[in-house]
């Protein structure tokens, strides 16, 4: 296990470095010109563009810039705007804010959204899947399966808007979505995130409910589940402990992937509900050619994804003792 973690962490570092390098070279070598977005209406002036490029540190060759970037992460660096302590991800091209702090400022929102949403779609999806599995082949099964699928076939930007219109603007049953720090006011935090969670989960639920349903059906037919029944375990225990345990592995896999990607920001949800998380930051940094911010967001999200996957793989061995970790 320790060996596994060490090996995987090393792999993760390599991956993160690779992604970092590739993205850096791709985006910094792209024919887009960030300077043009920081020149207001003065862009016709090549001298100004050069000036801006110097200000942004873009005048150096890309490998040198990359070197500075990497060094900055570990040792901090002196920048035109001032000293940037480690871990230094630079300053936004756009509003000159330190990238690291901006991301740290947005991350709680993203984490809240990801974890809360995941909790909702996991619980709901798995519950629906279990109901469907327990009553497989019946109308209940088809009804719940269809229900979750209808959710899936609609899109966040649509359901989100409708939900806001109905639940916030028309009936006022929910608070207007907004992020409040959990540490300051848990109740407000919950109230502010509830609607985004619900809407975010709608498109995920189908995947979980269907995966759960089919895995559960498979597991319920296993002989060892029959043994559990023969032991007098209650229907619930059999269902939730024995069958569920065997059904869990692929579900954990998708949770890992989904959570990983949510950690990188739920773009559409954030836009729909006017939340300020990494997703919005990512989109804005792309549209504004804000390369340091883009790199920063990317670094965060790819780290999250890689970690999520390591956790999933480590979990496999606990979920199924037959799996050997190496």
């Amino acid at each position: 296990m320790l060996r596994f973690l060490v090996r995987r962490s090393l792999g993760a570092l390599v991956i993160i470095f690779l992604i970092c390098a590739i993205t850096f070279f791709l985006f910094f070598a792209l024919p887009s010109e960030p300077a043009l977005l920081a020149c207001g209406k003065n862009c016709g002036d090549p001298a100004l563009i050069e000036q801006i490029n110097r200000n942004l540190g873009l005048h150096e060759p890309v490998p040198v810039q990359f070197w500075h970037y990497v060094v900055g992460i570990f040792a901090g660096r002196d920048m035109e705007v001032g000293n940037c302590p480690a871990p230094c991800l630079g300053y936004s091209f756009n509003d000159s804010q330190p990238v690291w702090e901006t991301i740290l400022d947005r991350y709680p929102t993203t984490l809240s959204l990801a974890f809360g949403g995941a909790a909702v779609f996991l619980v709901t999806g798995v519950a629906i899947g279990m109901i469907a599995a327990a009553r497989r082949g019946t109308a209940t099964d088809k009804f719940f399966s269809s229900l979750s699928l209808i959710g899936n076939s609609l899109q966040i930007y649509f359901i989100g808007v409708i939900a806001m219109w109905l639940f916030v603007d028309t009936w006022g049953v929910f608070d207007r979505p907004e992020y409040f720090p959990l540490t300051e006011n848990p109740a407000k935090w919950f109230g502010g995130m509830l609607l985004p969670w619900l809407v975010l989960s709608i498109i995920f639920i189908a995947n979980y409910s269907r995966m759960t349903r089919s895995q559960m059906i498979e597991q319920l037919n296993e002989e060892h589940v029959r043994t559990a029944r023969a032991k007098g375990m209650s229907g619930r225990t059999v269902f939730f402990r024995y069958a569920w345990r065997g059904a869990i592995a692929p579900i954990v896999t998708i949770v890992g992937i989904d959570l990983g990607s949510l950690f990188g920001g739920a773009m559409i949800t954030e836009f729909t509900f006017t939340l300020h998380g990494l997703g919005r930051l990512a989109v804005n940094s792309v549209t504004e050619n804000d390369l340091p911010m883009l790199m920063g967001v990317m670094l965060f999200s790819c780290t999250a994804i890689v970690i999520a996957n390591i956790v999933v793989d480590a979990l496999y061995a606990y979920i199924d003792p037959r799996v050997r970790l190496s």
Partner: protein
Amino acid sequence: MTTCAKPEDNAATPAGAPGSAFLSVRDLYVHFSTEDGIVKAVDGLSFDLERGRTLGIVGESGSGKSVTGLSVLGLHDPMHTETRGEILLDGQEMTGAGEKTLEKLRGNKVAMIFQDSLTALSPYYTIGRQICEPYRKHTGASRRAAWARAVELLGRVGIPQPKLRAHDYPHQFSGGMRQRAMIAMALVCDPELLIADEPTTALDVTVQAQILDLLSDLQQEFGSAIILITHDLGVVANTADELLVMYAGRAVERGTVSEVLRAPQHPYTWGLLTSMPRLESDVSEALTPIPGAPPSLLATPTGCPFHPRCGYPAEVGGTRCEDERPLIGPGRGSACHLSAGQKRSLFIEQIKPRLG
């Protein structure tokens, strides 16, 4: 005491007041619907069992022994299985009972040892935990007490270093150890009825002996009734009180162990006995299995299901064996059209010598 049963077609005559026997199975039919048609796994089976007694069930492989066991616990999936008939456990009807009632009985009053121990154990939980669970549920014991009980039982079924091995997962156990774990799991609540489906097939004889002793220990202590499903006639001979011989989903012979083994009445039983290898027998001689192939449960032969493989339809005469289904009476008896005299003389003349 008495292994009494009534003829299948004679439901009107109760053989003793209901509930007099601890377990009484009446006219049990278990049918599976499959791609190819209806599999009549159990086709009209009746038997009774008293407390403190052991009923051995032997018979053709695939003759419905395990299915019968499962029916007693109500473990068939009702969606795919048609179960008819009456199973009374201590006066309680099991076939129609609700899941809740059954849950309380299973693992507690009735326990079952499954045949296929690797697949019957959950691969996800440690052996210890799997044994603990029914104990905690049925006795309300604490986690620690239950664990201690599990370790104790593992020790009793002969698992070395039970404390350590209780933490193992089934795939880390050898076949025999799994089976013993399975047995420990069934015994953990000192059940009043134990259905042991080939409990010792994967065990070496010394351990087997130990297990069988353990079972009788249980019986002595708690007056439990045991249904011992096995192929090993030796085990039956040493352990069971009564014996039921099954063929194609039906009982073909029943009686006390010594009655059936020493004076068997049914040609199938004769076949079984003669095909058994013995430690003293001559190895150069091939074993003598019953000729022919086991019947298809999809289309069981008409009349006596054994008639295509039986050597004696001629003795019965006519086509009676093909047409008429022989009945088995209550108590000692066999489902065969041969007359009692014929049975006796045929056994003594033709079969007994071969048993040597």
